[in-house]
Protein backbone atom coordinates (compact mmCIF):
# COMPACT_ATOMS: atom_id res chain seq x y z
CA UNK A 1 0.00 0.00 0.00
CA UNK A 2 2.72 2.41 1.06
CA UNK A 3 4.74 1.58 -2.08
CA UNK A 4 1.74 2.18 -4.30
CA UNK A 5 1.11 5.48 -2.56
CA UNK A 6 4.69 6.58 -3.13
CA UNK A 7 4.59 5.59 -6.77
CA UNK A 8 1.35 7.48 -7.20
CA UNK A 9 2.81 10.58 -5.62
CA UNK A 10 5.81 10.37 -7.91
CA UNK A 11 3.53 10.06 -10.95
CA UNK A 12 1.60 13.10 -9.79
CA UNK A 13 4.80 15.08 -9.41
CA UNK A 14 5.94 14.16 -12.90
CA UNK A 15 2.53 15.08 -14.28
CA UNK A 16 2.83 18.44 -12.50
CA UNK A 17 5.79 19.46 -14.68
CA UNK A 18 3.93 19.80 -18.03
CA UNK A 19 0.97 21.28 -16.14
CA UNK A 20 3.27 23.89 -14.64
CA UNK A 21 4.74 24.76 -18.02
CA UNK A 22 1.23 25.10 -19.43
CA UNK A 23 0.21 27.36 -16.56
CA UNK A 24 3.33 29.50 -17.05
CA UNK A 25 2.63 29.87 -20.76
CA UNK A 26 -0.79 31.25 -19.84
CA UNK A 27 0.43 33.47 -17.06
CA UNK A 28 3.52 34.93 -18.73
CA UNK A 29 1.71 37.11 -21.29
CA UNK A 30 -0.35 38.59 -18.46
CA UNK A 31 2.79 39.25 -16.48
CA UNK A 32 4.43 40.75 -19.60
CA UNK A 33 1.49 43.07 -20.13
CA UNK A 34 1.20 44.22 -16.52
CA UNK A 35 4.97 44.61 -16.16
CA UNK A 36 5.47 46.66 -19.30
CA UNK A 37 2.41 48.78 -18.68
CA UNK A 38 4.20 50.11 -15.62
CA UNK A 39 7.32 51.16 -17.58
CA UNK A 40 7.98 54.40 -19.38
CA UNK A 41 8.61 54.27 -23.10
CA UNK A 42 12.34 54.68 -22.58
CA UNK A 43 12.50 51.99 -19.89
CA UNK A 44 10.76 49.63 -22.26
CA UNK A 45 13.13 50.33 -25.13
CA UNK A 46 16.13 49.79 -22.87
CA UNK A 47 14.89 46.54 -21.36
CA UNK A 48 11.82 44.76 -22.67
CA UNK A 49 11.87 41.77 -20.38
CA UNK A 50 13.20 43.14 -17.13
CA UNK A 51 11.05 44.11 -14.17
CA UNK A 52 9.64 47.61 -14.09
CA UNK A 53 12.06 49.17 -11.60
CA UNK A 54 10.38 52.59 -11.45
CA UNK A 55 6.69 51.66 -11.81
CA UNK A 56 4.44 54.41 -13.05
CA UNK A 57 0.72 54.59 -13.76
CA UNK A 58 1.15 57.29 -16.39
CA UNK A 59 0.35 54.87 -19.20
CA UNK A 60 -2.98 54.04 -17.59
CA UNK A 61 -3.89 57.65 -17.19
CA UNK A 62 -2.93 58.40 -20.79
CA UNK A 63 -4.70 55.37 -22.22
CA UNK A 64 -7.83 56.12 -20.19
CA UNK A 65 -8.17 59.78 -21.12
CA UNK A 66 -6.03 60.62 -24.17
CA UNK A 67 -6.93 57.47 -26.11
CA UNK A 68 -10.64 57.72 -25.18
CA UNK A 69 -10.63 54.33 -23.50
CA UNK A 70 -12.95 55.82 -20.86
CA UNK A 71 -15.61 56.35 -23.50
CA UNK A 72 -14.93 52.98 -25.15
CA UNK A 73 -15.14 51.30 -21.77
CA UNK A 74 -18.62 52.70 -21.17
CA UNK A 75 -19.69 51.54 -24.63
CA UNK A 76 -18.48 48.03 -23.93
CA UNK A 77 -20.17 47.92 -20.55
CA UNK A 78 -23.50 49.10 -21.97
CA UNK A 79 -23.39 46.66 -24.90
CA UNK A 80 -22.29 43.71 -22.77
CA UNK A 81 -24.73 44.21 -19.92
CA UNK A 82 -27.60 44.93 -22.28
CA UNK A 83 -26.91 41.91 -24.46
CA UNK A 84 -26.33 39.54 -21.53
CA UNK A 85 -29.62 40.54 -19.89
CA UNK A 86 -31.50 40.18 -23.16
CA UNK A 87 -29.79 36.86 -23.94
CA UNK A 88 -30.58 35.49 -20.50
CA UNK A 89 -34.25 36.44 -20.62
CA UNK A 90 -34.83 35.29 -24.19
CA UNK A 91 -32.89 32.04 -23.94
CA UNK A 92 -34.53 30.97 -20.68
CA UNK A 93 -37.97 31.72 -22.12
CA UNK A 94 -37.17 29.89 -25.34
CA UNK A 95 -35.52 27.00 -23.49
CA UNK A 96 -38.58 26.67 -21.26
CA UNK A 97 -40.88 26.61 -24.28
CA UNK A 98 -38.77 24.20 -26.32
CA UNK A 99 -38.09 21.84 -23.42
CA UNK A 100 -41.37 21.83 -21.56
CA UNK A 101 -44.26 23.02 -23.68
CA UNK A 102 -46.02 21.14 -26.42
CA UNK A 103 -46.70 23.07 -29.59
CA UNK A 104 -46.64 22.22 -33.29
CA UNK A 105 -43.23 22.13 -35.04
CA UNK A 106 -41.40 22.32 -31.73
CA UNK A 107 -38.67 19.91 -32.84
CA UNK A 108 -38.37 21.54 -36.24
CA UNK A 109 -37.94 24.94 -34.62
CA UNK A 110 -35.24 23.58 -32.33
CA UNK A 111 -33.37 22.10 -35.29
CA UNK A 112 -33.57 25.42 -37.16
CA UNK A 113 -32.13 27.25 -34.15
CA UNK A 114 -29.41 24.61 -33.80
CA UNK A 115 -28.53 24.77 -37.48
CA UNK A 116 -27.87 28.51 -37.24
CA UNK A 117 -25.06 27.54 -34.87
CA UNK A 118 -23.25 26.01 -37.82
CA UNK A 119 -23.21 29.20 -39.92
CA UNK A 120 -20.00 31.23 -39.53
CA UNK A 121 -20.52 34.90 -38.75
CA UNK A 122 -18.34 35.92 -41.71
CA UNK A 123 -20.74 34.31 -44.18
CA UNK A 124 -23.64 36.55 -43.22
CA UNK A 125 -21.75 39.80 -42.71
CA UNK A 126 -23.00 41.45 -45.88
CA UNK A 127 -26.72 40.81 -45.38
CA UNK A 128 -26.21 41.62 -41.71
CA UNK A 129 -24.67 45.01 -42.55
CA UNK A 130 -27.37 45.86 -45.05
CA UNK A 131 -30.03 45.01 -42.47
CA UNK A 132 -28.36 47.13 -39.82
CA UNK A 133 -28.02 50.08 -42.20
CA UNK A 134 -31.57 49.64 -43.38
CA UNK A 135 -32.88 49.68 -39.82
CA UNK A 136 -30.74 52.67 -38.90
CA UNK A 137 -29.07 50.75 -36.11
CA UNK A 138 -25.49 51.51 -37.13
CA UNK A 139 -23.54 53.41 -34.46
CA UNK A 140 -26.17 52.87 -31.79
CA UNK A 141 -25.88 50.98 -28.53
CA UNK A 142 -29.21 49.31 -29.12
CA UNK A 143 -27.95 48.10 -32.50
CA UNK A 144 -24.92 46.47 -30.93
CA UNK A 145 -27.00 44.93 -28.13
CA UNK A 146 -29.44 43.46 -30.66
CA UNK A 147 -26.56 42.19 -32.82
CA UNK A 148 -24.86 40.41 -29.94
CA UNK A 149 -28.18 38.93 -28.90
CA UNK A 150 -28.83 37.70 -32.42
CA UNK A 151 -25.38 36.17 -32.87
CA UNK A 152 -25.17 34.46 -29.48
CA UNK A 153 -28.81 33.39 -29.08
CA UNK A 154 -28.60 30.00 -30.85
CA UNK A 155 -26.05 28.60 -28.44
CA UNK A 156 -27.84 30.14 -25.46
CA UNK A 157 -31.19 28.66 -26.46
CA UNK A 158 -29.55 25.31 -27.12
CA UNK A 159 -27.95 25.29 -23.70
CA UNK A 160 -31.09 26.31 -21.80
CA UNK A 161 -33.22 23.82 -23.72
CA UNK A 162 -30.78 21.05 -22.85
CA UNK A 163 -30.75 22.09 -19.21
CA UNK A 164 -34.51 22.44 -18.87
CA UNK A 165 -35.06 19.10 -20.61
CA UNK A 166 -33.34 17.50 -17.65
CA UNK A 167 -35.78 18.97 -15.11
CA UNK A 168 -38.69 16.76 -14.06
CA UNK A 169 -41.86 17.60 -15.96
CA UNK A 170 -43.93 17.16 -12.83
CA UNK A 171 -42.56 20.40 -11.39
CA UNK A 172 -44.16 22.37 -14.19
CA UNK A 173 -47.34 20.33 -13.96
CA UNK A 174 -47.50 20.83 -10.20
CA UNK A 175 -47.11 24.58 -10.69
CA UNK A 176 -49.84 24.59 -13.34
CA UNK A 177 -52.22 22.77 -11.00
CA UNK A 178 -51.24 25.23 -8.28
CA UNK A 179 -52.66 27.91 -10.53
CA UNK A 180 -49.50 29.40 -11.99
CA UNK A 181 -49.83 30.84 -15.49
CA UNK A 182 -47.03 30.05 -17.95
CA UNK A 183 -45.06 33.23 -17.23
CA UNK A 184 -45.45 32.61 -13.51
CA UNK A 185 -44.15 29.05 -13.95
CA UNK A 186 -41.19 30.55 -15.79
CA UNK A 187 -40.53 33.17 -13.15
CA UNK A 188 -41.15 31.10 -10.00
CA UNK A 189 -39.92 27.69 -11.11
CA UNK A 190 -37.80 27.75 -14.27
CA UNK A 191 -35.67 30.80 -13.43
CA UNK A 192 -34.66 29.69 -9.90
CA UNK A 193 -34.09 26.09 -10.99
CA UNK A 194 -32.21 27.20 -14.08
CA UNK A 195 -29.87 29.44 -12.06
CA UNK A 196 -26.75 27.25 -12.39
CA UNK A 197 -27.13 27.13 -16.17
CA UNK A 198 -28.12 30.79 -16.42
CA UNK A 199 -25.06 31.92 -14.48
CA UNK A 200 -22.74 29.83 -16.65
CA UNK A 201 -24.45 31.17 -19.73
CA UNK A 202 -24.23 34.73 -18.42
CA UNK A 203 -20.49 34.38 -17.90
CA UNK A 204 -19.90 32.83 -21.33
CA UNK A 205 -21.98 35.52 -23.03
CA UNK A 206 -20.20 38.25 -21.06
CA UNK A 207 -16.89 36.90 -22.33
CA UNK A 208 -18.14 36.67 -25.91
CA UNK A 209 -19.63 40.17 -25.96
CA UNK A 210 -16.77 41.85 -24.10
CA UNK A 211 -14.07 40.23 -26.26
CA UNK A 212 -15.83 40.69 -29.58
CA UNK A 213 -14.13 42.82 -32.19
CA UNK A 214 -15.71 41.89 -35.51
CA UNK A 215 -19.35 42.75 -34.82
CA UNK A 216 -18.46 45.86 -32.85
CA UNK A 217 -16.10 47.04 -35.58
CA UNK A 218 -18.90 46.87 -38.12
CA UNK A 219 -21.71 48.19 -35.97
CA UNK A 220 -19.97 50.92 -33.97
CA UNK A 221 -17.91 52.64 -36.60
CA UNK A 222 -17.83 56.07 -35.02
CA UNK A 223 -18.26 55.11 -31.43
CA UNK A 224 -15.86 52.29 -30.59
CA UNK A 225 -16.03 49.58 -27.99
CA UNK A 226 -13.05 48.84 -25.77
CA UNK A 227 -11.73 45.91 -27.82
CA UNK A 228 -11.93 47.84 -31.06
CA UNK A 229 -10.30 50.79 -29.33
CA UNK A 230 -7.43 48.65 -28.09
CA UNK A 231 -6.86 47.22 -31.55
CA UNK A 232 -6.73 50.73 -32.89
CA UNK A 233 -4.16 51.71 -30.25
CA UNK A 234 -1.80 49.20 -31.77
CA UNK A 235 -1.86 50.97 -35.11
CA UNK A 236 -1.82 54.48 -33.69
CA UNK A 237 1.02 53.99 -31.25
CA UNK A 238 3.04 51.12 -32.66
CA UNK A 239 6.11 52.34 -30.82
CA UNK A 240 4.24 52.87 -27.54
CA UNK A 241 4.08 49.32 -26.28
CA UNK A 242 3.71 50.35 -22.58
CA UNK A 243 0.66 52.46 -23.45
CA UNK A 244 -0.72 49.60 -25.49
CA UNK A 245 -0.22 47.05 -22.70
CA UNK A 246 -1.91 49.42 -20.23
CA UNK A 247 -4.92 49.40 -22.54
CA UNK A 248 -4.84 45.61 -22.62
CA UNK A 249 -4.79 45.43 -18.83
CA UNK A 250 -7.73 47.83 -18.61
CA UNK A 251 -9.65 45.68 -21.09
CA UNK A 252 -8.86 42.40 -19.40
CA UNK A 253 -9.37 43.54 -15.82
CA UNK A 254 -13.19 43.36 -15.69
CA UNK A 255 -13.20 39.79 -17.02
CA UNK A 256 -10.48 38.71 -14.56
CA UNK A 257 -12.39 40.31 -11.67
CA UNK A 258 -15.58 38.60 -12.83
CA UNK A 259 -13.75 35.29 -12.93
CA UNK A 260 -12.36 35.71 -9.43
CA UNK A 261 -15.83 36.55 -8.04
CA UNK A 262 -17.63 33.73 -9.81
CA UNK A 263 -14.79 31.21 -9.83
CA UNK A 264 -16.70 28.56 -7.91
CA UNK A 265 -19.90 29.07 -9.88
CA UNK A 266 -17.98 28.86 -13.16
CA UNK A 267 -16.36 25.55 -12.23
CA UNK A 268 -19.62 24.05 -10.93
CA UNK A 269 -21.51 25.62 -13.81
CA UNK A 270 -19.37 23.92 -16.42
CA UNK A 271 -20.33 20.60 -14.81
CA UNK A 272 -24.01 21.53 -15.16
CA UNK A 273 -25.70 19.15 -17.49
CA UNK A 274 -22.73 16.79 -17.44
CA UNK A 275 -23.81 15.16 -14.21
CA UNK A 276 -27.33 15.53 -12.95
CA UNK A 277 -27.07 16.69 -9.36
Amino acid at each position, binding site marked *: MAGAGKRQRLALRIAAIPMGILALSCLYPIFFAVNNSLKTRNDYLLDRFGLALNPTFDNYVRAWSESHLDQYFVNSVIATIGAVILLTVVSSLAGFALAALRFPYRRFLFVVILSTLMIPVQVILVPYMRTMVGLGLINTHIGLILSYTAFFIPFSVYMMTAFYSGLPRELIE*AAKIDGAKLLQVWWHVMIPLGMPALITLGILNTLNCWNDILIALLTMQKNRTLMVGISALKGQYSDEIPLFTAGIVIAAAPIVILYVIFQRRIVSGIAVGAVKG
Partner: protein
Amino acid sequence: MSRVELQQVSKSFGSTEVVHNVSLAIEEGEFCVFVGPSGCGKSTLLRMIAGLEETSSGDILIGERNVTDEEPSDRGVAMVFQSYALYPHMTVADNMSFGLRMAHRPKAEITEKVARAAGILRLEDYLQRKPAQLSGGQRQRVAIGRAIVRNPKVFLFDEPLSNLDAELRVQMRVEISKLHSVLGNTMIYVTHDQTEALTMADRIVVLRAGRIEQIGTPSGLYEDPDNAFVAGFIGSPRMNFLPASVQPNGRLLAGGVAMESPVTAKLEAGTKLQLGLRPEHLDQVDGIGLEASVEFVEALGATSYVHAKLATGEDVIAERRLHRPKAGDKIALHFAPEAMRLFDSGGARLR
Protein backbone atom coordinates in the same frame (compact mmCIF):
# COMPACT_ATOMS: atom_id res chain seq x y z
CA MET B 1 -66.21 18.37 -2.32
CA SER B 2 -67.67 17.36 -5.61
CA ARG B 3 -68.62 14.39 -7.62
CA VAL B 4 -66.61 13.58 -10.71
CA GLU B 5 -68.12 12.17 -13.80
CA LEU B 6 -66.43 10.83 -16.92
CA GLN B 7 -68.68 10.52 -19.96
CA GLN B 8 -67.33 8.30 -22.74
CA VAL B 9 -63.85 9.67 -22.34
CA SER B 10 -61.14 8.66 -24.81
CA LYS B 11 -57.52 9.63 -25.22
CA SER B 12 -55.21 9.07 -28.14
CA PHE B 13 -51.54 9.79 -28.51
CA GLY B 14 -51.16 10.14 -32.26
CA SER B 15 -52.88 7.12 -33.73
CA THR B 16 -52.67 5.01 -30.57
CA GLU B 17 -55.73 5.12 -28.39
CA VAL B 18 -54.75 4.56 -24.77
CA VAL B 19 -58.08 5.21 -23.07
CA HIS B 20 -61.16 3.81 -24.75
CA ASN B 21 -64.60 5.23 -24.09
CA VAL B 22 -64.47 5.25 -20.32
CA SER B 23 -67.63 6.23 -18.43
CA LEU B 24 -67.56 6.50 -14.70
CA ALA B 25 -69.18 8.42 -11.85
CA ILE B 26 -67.28 9.05 -8.63
CA GLU B 27 -69.54 10.16 -5.82
CA GLU B 28 -68.99 13.16 -3.57
CA GLY B 29 -66.60 12.32 -0.73
CA GLU B 30 -65.74 8.95 -2.20
CA PHE B 31 -62.25 7.42 -2.08
CA CYS B 32 -61.92 5.88 -5.52
CA VAL B 33 -58.88 3.87 -6.57
CA PHE B 34 -57.84 3.24 -10.17
CA VAL B 35 -55.85 0.06 -10.27
CA GLY B 36 -54.34 -1.98 -13.07
CA PRO B 37 -51.06 -3.22 -14.48
CA SER B 38 -48.59 -0.69 -15.87
CA GLY B 39 -49.64 0.74 -19.20
CA CYS B 40 -53.34 0.23 -18.53
CA GLY B 41 -54.07 3.95 -18.82
CA LYS B 42 -54.87 4.63 -15.17
CA SER B 43 -52.38 7.49 -14.82
CA THR B 44 -53.44 8.95 -18.16
CA LEU B 45 -57.05 8.91 -16.98
CA LEU B 46 -56.07 10.70 -13.77
CA ARG B 47 -54.03 13.27 -15.70
CA MET B 48 -57.02 13.86 -17.95
CA ILE B 49 -59.14 14.60 -14.88
CA ALA B 50 -56.39 16.95 -13.68
CA GLY B 51 -56.26 18.66 -17.07
CA LEU B 52 -52.63 17.77 -17.68
CA GLU B 53 -53.62 15.67 -20.69
CA GLU B 54 -56.12 16.84 -23.24
CA THR B 55 -59.23 14.73 -23.64
CA SER B 56 -59.52 13.45 -27.21
CA SER B 57 -63.24 12.87 -26.94
CA GLY B 58 -65.90 12.70 -24.26
CA ASP B 59 -66.62 14.98 -21.31
CA ILE B 60 -65.28 15.36 -17.79
CA LEU B 61 -67.56 16.87 -15.17
CA ILE B 62 -66.44 18.01 -11.75
CA GLY B 63 -69.34 19.00 -9.52
CA GLU B 64 -71.82 19.22 -12.41
CA ARG B 65 -69.53 21.61 -14.28
CA ASN B 66 -68.05 20.50 -17.59
CA VAL B 67 -64.30 21.07 -17.19
CA THR B 68 -63.15 19.15 -20.28
CA ASP B 69 -61.53 22.19 -21.86
CA GLU B 70 -60.57 24.04 -18.71
CA GLU B 71 -57.05 24.71 -17.46
CA PRO B 72 -55.80 22.50 -14.60
CA SER B 73 -55.87 25.43 -12.19
CA ASP B 74 -59.51 26.20 -12.93
CA ARG B 75 -60.76 22.69 -12.21
CA GLY B 76 -60.50 22.85 -8.44
CA VAL B 77 -58.28 19.80 -8.23
CA ALA B 78 -55.03 19.21 -6.36
CA MET B 79 -52.59 16.52 -7.32
CA VAL B 80 -49.94 14.56 -5.47
CA PHE B 81 -47.27 13.15 -7.77
CA GLN B 82 -45.26 9.97 -7.46
CA SER B 83 -42.03 11.97 -7.54
CA TYR B 84 -43.53 14.46 -5.02
CA ALA B 85 -42.69 17.29 -7.46
CA LEU B 86 -41.74 19.66 -4.66
CA TYR B 87 -40.09 22.91 -5.72
CA PRO B 88 -36.51 22.24 -4.61
CA HIS B 89 -35.58 25.91 -4.18
CA MET B 90 -38.47 26.71 -1.83
CA THR B 91 -38.91 25.92 1.84
CA VAL B 92 -41.63 23.54 2.99
CA ALA B 93 -43.80 26.53 3.94
CA ASP B 94 -43.26 28.17 0.53
CA ASN B 95 -43.98 24.90 -1.24
CA MET B 96 -47.26 24.54 0.58
CA SER B 97 -48.30 28.16 0.11
CA PHE B 98 -47.35 28.39 -3.58
CA GLY B 99 -50.88 27.83 -4.85
CA LEU B 100 -52.34 30.40 -2.47
CA ARG B 101 -49.68 32.93 -3.39
CA MET B 102 -50.46 32.41 -7.06
CA ALA B 103 -54.09 33.11 -6.23
CA HIS B 104 -53.02 36.32 -4.38
CA ARG B 105 -54.67 35.29 -1.11
CA PRO B 106 -54.08 37.57 1.90
CA LYS B 107 -50.96 36.81 3.96
CA ALA B 108 -52.88 36.03 7.13
CA GLU B 109 -55.01 33.45 5.37
CA ILE B 110 -51.94 31.81 3.82
CA THR B 111 -50.17 31.56 7.17
CA GLU B 112 -53.24 30.14 8.82
CA LYS B 113 -53.90 27.52 6.15
CA VAL B 114 -50.28 26.40 6.00
CA ALA B 115 -50.21 26.10 9.79
CA ARG B 116 -53.38 24.04 9.76
CA ALA B 117 -52.10 21.66 7.05
CA ALA B 118 -48.74 21.39 8.81
CA GLY B 119 -50.60 20.48 11.97
CA ILE B 120 -52.61 17.74 10.29
CA LEU B 121 -49.48 16.31 8.70
CA ARG B 122 -47.14 16.89 11.67
CA LEU B 123 -44.80 19.09 9.65
CA GLU B 124 -44.65 22.06 12.05
CA ASP B 125 -40.97 21.52 12.82
CA TYR B 126 -39.94 21.36 9.18
CA LEU B 127 -41.62 24.43 7.73
CA GLN B 128 -38.37 26.32 7.16
CA ARG B 129 -36.48 23.39 5.65
CA LYS B 130 -35.85 22.72 1.98
CA PRO B 131 -37.18 19.48 0.44
CA ALA B 132 -33.64 18.10 0.09
CA GLN B 133 -33.35 18.11 3.90
CA LEU B 134 -36.40 15.88 4.35
CA SER B 135 -36.88 12.11 4.24
CA GLY B 136 -39.03 10.47 1.58
CA GLY B 137 -42.02 10.17 3.88
CA GLN B 138 -41.75 13.80 4.96
CA ARG B 139 -41.50 14.95 1.36
CA GLN B 140 -44.63 13.05 0.49
CA ARG B 141 -46.41 14.66 3.43
CA VAL B 142 -45.34 18.08 2.16
CA ALA B 143 -46.73 17.19 -1.26
CA ILE B 144 -50.01 16.21 0.40
CA GLY B 145 -49.88 19.41 2.46
CA ARG B 146 -49.51 21.45 -0.71
CA ALA B 147 -52.70 19.79 -1.92
CA ILE B 148 -54.58 20.34 1.35
CA VAL B 149 -53.95 24.09 1.67
CA ARG B 150 -55.72 24.75 -1.59
CA ASN B 151 -58.86 23.12 -0.22
CA PRO B 152 -59.60 21.43 -3.54
CA LYS B 153 -62.86 19.86 -4.57
CA VAL B 154 -61.02 16.73 -5.62
CA PHE B 155 -57.68 15.26 -4.55
CA LEU B 156 -55.78 13.32 -7.19
CA PHE B 157 -53.02 10.93 -6.16
CA ASP B 158 -50.73 9.45 -8.82
CA GLU B 159 -48.98 6.44 -7.26
CA PRO B 160 -47.93 8.58 -4.31
CA LEU B 161 -46.38 5.77 -2.30
CA SER B 162 -44.35 4.02 -4.98
CA ASN B 163 -41.10 5.75 -4.05
CA LEU B 164 -41.31 4.85 -0.36
CA ASP B 165 -39.96 1.78 1.37
CA ALA B 166 -42.33 -0.99 2.44
CA GLU B 167 -42.77 0.06 6.05
CA LEU B 168 -43.33 3.72 5.26
CA ARG B 169 -45.77 2.74 2.55
CA VAL B 170 -47.97 0.93 5.05
CA GLN B 171 -47.76 3.90 7.42
CA MET B 172 -48.61 6.48 4.72
CA ARG B 173 -51.45 4.28 3.52
CA VAL B 174 -53.04 4.58 6.94
CA GLU B 175 -52.32 8.31 7.07
CA ILE B 176 -53.94 8.99 3.72
CA SER B 177 -56.99 6.95 4.74
CA LYS B 178 -57.23 8.93 7.99
CA LEU B 179 -56.84 12.15 6.06
CA HIS B 180 -59.75 11.16 3.89
CA SER B 181 -61.95 10.56 6.89
CA VAL B 182 -60.91 13.91 8.44
CA LEU B 183 -61.27 16.04 5.29
CA GLY B 184 -64.04 14.10 3.60
CA ASN B 185 -63.04 15.31 0.12
CA THR B 186 -63.49 13.30 -3.02
CA MET B 187 -60.22 11.49 -3.64
CA ILE B 188 -59.04 9.63 -6.72
CA TYR B 189 -56.01 7.47 -6.19
CA VAL B 190 -53.98 5.65 -8.83
CA THR B 191 -51.90 2.62 -7.97
CA HIS B 192 -50.66 -0.61 -9.49
CA ASP B 193 -50.61 -2.19 -6.04
CA GLN B 194 -53.81 -4.13 -5.42
CA THR B 195 -53.12 -4.20 -1.66
CA GLU B 196 -53.24 -0.39 -1.59
CA ALA B 197 -56.44 -0.51 -3.60
CA LEU B 198 -58.10 -3.06 -1.32
CA THR B 199 -57.10 -1.36 1.92
CA MET B 200 -57.87 2.25 1.03
CA ALA B 201 -60.70 2.34 -1.47
CA ASP B 202 -64.40 2.87 -1.03
CA ARG B 203 -64.64 1.79 -4.61
CA ILE B 204 -62.09 0.31 -6.99
CA VAL B 205 -61.94 0.77 -10.75
CA VAL B 206 -59.92 -2.02 -12.37
CA LEU B 207 -58.45 -1.00 -15.71
CA ARG B 208 -56.77 -3.00 -18.41
CA ALA B 209 -55.48 -1.70 -21.76
CA GLY B 210 -57.46 1.53 -21.43
CA ARG B 211 -60.78 -0.10 -20.61
CA ILE B 212 -62.65 -0.52 -17.35
CA GLU B 213 -62.77 -4.21 -16.46
CA GLN B 214 -64.91 -3.82 -13.35
CA ILE B 215 -65.98 -1.22 -10.81
CA GLY B 216 -66.89 -2.25 -7.29
CA THR B 217 -66.16 -2.21 -3.60
CA PRO B 218 -62.98 -3.98 -2.48
CA SER B 219 -64.94 -6.92 -1.07
CA GLY B 220 -67.20 -6.97 -4.12
CA LEU B 221 -64.25 -7.30 -6.50
CA TYR B 222 -62.60 -9.87 -4.30
CA GLU B 223 -65.66 -12.02 -3.76
CA ASP B 224 -67.45 -11.54 -7.01
CA PRO B 225 -65.10 -10.73 -9.90
CA ASP B 226 -66.68 -10.22 -13.31
CA ASN B 227 -63.85 -11.86 -15.19
CA ALA B 228 -60.66 -13.84 -14.85
CA PHE B 229 -58.49 -10.71 -15.18
CA VAL B 230 -60.05 -9.01 -12.15
CA ALA B 231 -60.08 -12.29 -10.24
CA GLY B 232 -56.38 -12.72 -10.92
CA PHE B 233 -55.42 -9.11 -10.29
CA ILE B 234 -57.24 -8.61 -6.99
CA GLY B 235 -55.98 -10.75 -4.11
CA SER B 236 -52.49 -11.80 -3.15
CA PRO B 237 -51.19 -14.39 -3.81
CA ARG B 238 -53.24 -14.44 -6.96
CA MET B 239 -56.14 -16.79 -7.60
CA ASN B 240 -55.29 -20.28 -8.90
CA PHE B 241 -56.75 -21.05 -12.30
CA LEU B 242 -57.29 -24.69 -13.24
CA PRO B 243 -58.43 -25.87 -16.64
CA ALA B 244 -61.81 -27.52 -16.29
CA SER B 245 -64.12 -29.30 -18.70
CA VAL B 246 -67.82 -30.09 -18.66
CA GLN B 247 -68.59 -33.79 -18.62
CA PRO B 248 -71.58 -35.37 -20.41
CA ASN B 249 -73.45 -35.63 -17.08
CA GLY B 250 -73.06 -31.89 -16.53
CA ARG B 251 -70.46 -32.24 -13.80
CA LEU B 252 -67.07 -30.52 -14.00
CA LEU B 253 -63.70 -32.20 -14.23
CA ALA B 254 -60.79 -30.20 -12.85
CA GLY B 255 -57.48 -31.30 -11.40
CA GLY B 256 -58.50 -34.91 -12.00
CA VAL B 257 -61.54 -34.61 -9.72
CA ALA B 258 -65.18 -34.51 -10.77
CA MET B 259 -67.36 -31.99 -8.98
CA GLU B 260 -70.78 -30.35 -9.19
CA SER B 261 -70.90 -27.16 -11.25
CA PRO B 262 -71.27 -24.11 -8.99
CA VAL B 263 -73.24 -22.16 -11.59
CA THR B 264 -76.89 -22.16 -12.50
CA ALA B 265 -76.18 -21.59 -16.18
CA LYS B 266 -76.60 -24.63 -18.38
CA LEU B 267 -73.18 -25.86 -19.51
CA GLU B 268 -72.67 -27.79 -22.70
CA ALA B 269 -70.76 -31.04 -22.46
CA GLY B 270 -67.14 -30.77 -23.57
CA THR B 271 -66.88 -27.00 -22.99
CA LYS B 272 -63.45 -25.87 -21.81
CA LEU B 273 -63.60 -23.60 -18.76
CA GLN B 274 -61.32 -22.15 -16.09
CA LEU B 275 -61.90 -22.85 -12.44
CA GLY B 276 -60.69 -20.13 -10.09
CA LEU B 277 -59.78 -20.97 -6.52
CA ARG B 278 -58.18 -18.51 -4.07
CA PRO B 279 -55.19 -19.81 -2.06
CA GLU B 280 -56.93 -18.90 1.19
CA HIS B 281 -59.94 -21.07 0.27
CA LEU B 282 -57.85 -24.22 -0.15
CA ASP B 283 -57.43 -24.82 3.59
CA GLN B 284 -60.68 -26.59 4.44
CA VAL B 285 -60.66 -29.93 6.25
CA ASP B 286 -63.40 -31.39 4.10
CA GLY B 287 -65.30 -30.56 0.94
CA ILE B 288 -63.95 -31.15 -2.52
CA GLY B 289 -60.34 -32.34 -2.33
CA LEU B 290 -57.47 -32.09 -4.81
CA GLU B 291 -54.41 -34.32 -4.40
CA ALA B 292 -51.14 -32.44 -4.56
CA SER B 293 -47.47 -32.79 -3.70
CA VAL B 294 -45.72 -29.93 -1.94
CA GLU B 295 -42.86 -28.32 -3.85
CA PHE B 296 -41.87 -25.62 -1.40
CA VAL B 297 -43.32 -23.60 1.42
CA GLU B 298 -43.12 -19.84 2.02
CA ALA B 299 -43.38 -19.30 5.76
CA LEU B 300 -44.64 -15.82 6.65
CA GLY B 301 -45.02 -16.30 10.39
CA ALA B 302 -48.74 -16.21 11.04
CA THR B 303 -49.46 -17.96 7.77
CA SER B 304 -47.62 -19.84 5.07
CA TYR B 305 -48.06 -20.29 1.35
CA VAL B 306 -47.71 -23.81 0.05
CA HIS B 307 -46.57 -24.12 -3.57
CA ALA B 308 -47.78 -27.49 -4.77
CA LYS B 309 -48.26 -29.49 -7.95
CA LEU B 310 -51.54 -31.26 -8.59
CA ALA B 311 -51.60 -34.89 -9.73
CA THR B 312 -52.64 -33.54 -13.14
CA GLY B 313 -49.57 -31.28 -13.32
CA GLU B 314 -50.99 -27.79 -12.58
CA ASP B 315 -49.19 -25.53 -10.10
CA VAL B 316 -51.30 -24.19 -7.26
CA ILE B 317 -50.69 -22.04 -4.21
CA ALA B 318 -52.58 -22.82 -1.00
CA GLU B 319 -52.60 -20.95 2.29
CA ARG B 320 -52.02 -22.89 5.53
CA ARG B 321 -52.46 -21.30 8.93
CA LEU B 322 -52.05 -24.18 11.36
CA HIS B 323 -50.25 -27.16 9.89
CA ARG B 324 -47.28 -26.33 7.75
CA PRO B 325 -46.39 -29.20 5.39
CA LYS B 326 -42.84 -29.86 4.20
CA ALA B 327 -41.57 -30.05 0.66
CA GLY B 328 -42.29 -33.50 -0.77
CA ASP B 329 -45.37 -34.10 1.41
CA LYS B 330 -48.54 -35.39 -0.25
CA ILE B 331 -51.48 -33.27 0.84
CA ALA B 332 -55.14 -32.86 -0.02
CA LEU B 333 -56.37 -29.37 -0.79
CA HIS B 334 -59.99 -29.14 0.27
CA PHE B 335 -62.32 -26.32 -0.62
CA ALA B 336 -66.00 -25.51 -0.22
CA PRO B 337 -68.16 -25.48 -3.38
CA GLU B 338 -69.00 -21.78 -2.63
CA ALA B 339 -65.34 -20.92 -3.13
CA MET B 340 -65.41 -21.95 -6.78
CA ARG B 341 -65.38 -19.19 -9.43
CA LEU B 342 -65.98 -20.33 -12.97
CA PHE B 343 -64.84 -18.50 -16.12
CA ASP B 344 -65.27 -19.35 -19.77
CA SER B 345 -62.28 -19.77 -22.06
CA GLY B 346 -62.41 -16.03 -22.89
CA GLY B 347 -62.19 -15.14 -19.20
CA ALA B 348 -65.81 -14.03 -18.68
CA ARG B 349 -67.39 -15.07 -15.40
CA LEU B 350 -70.10 -17.75 -15.40
CA ARG B 351 -72.70 -17.39 -12.69
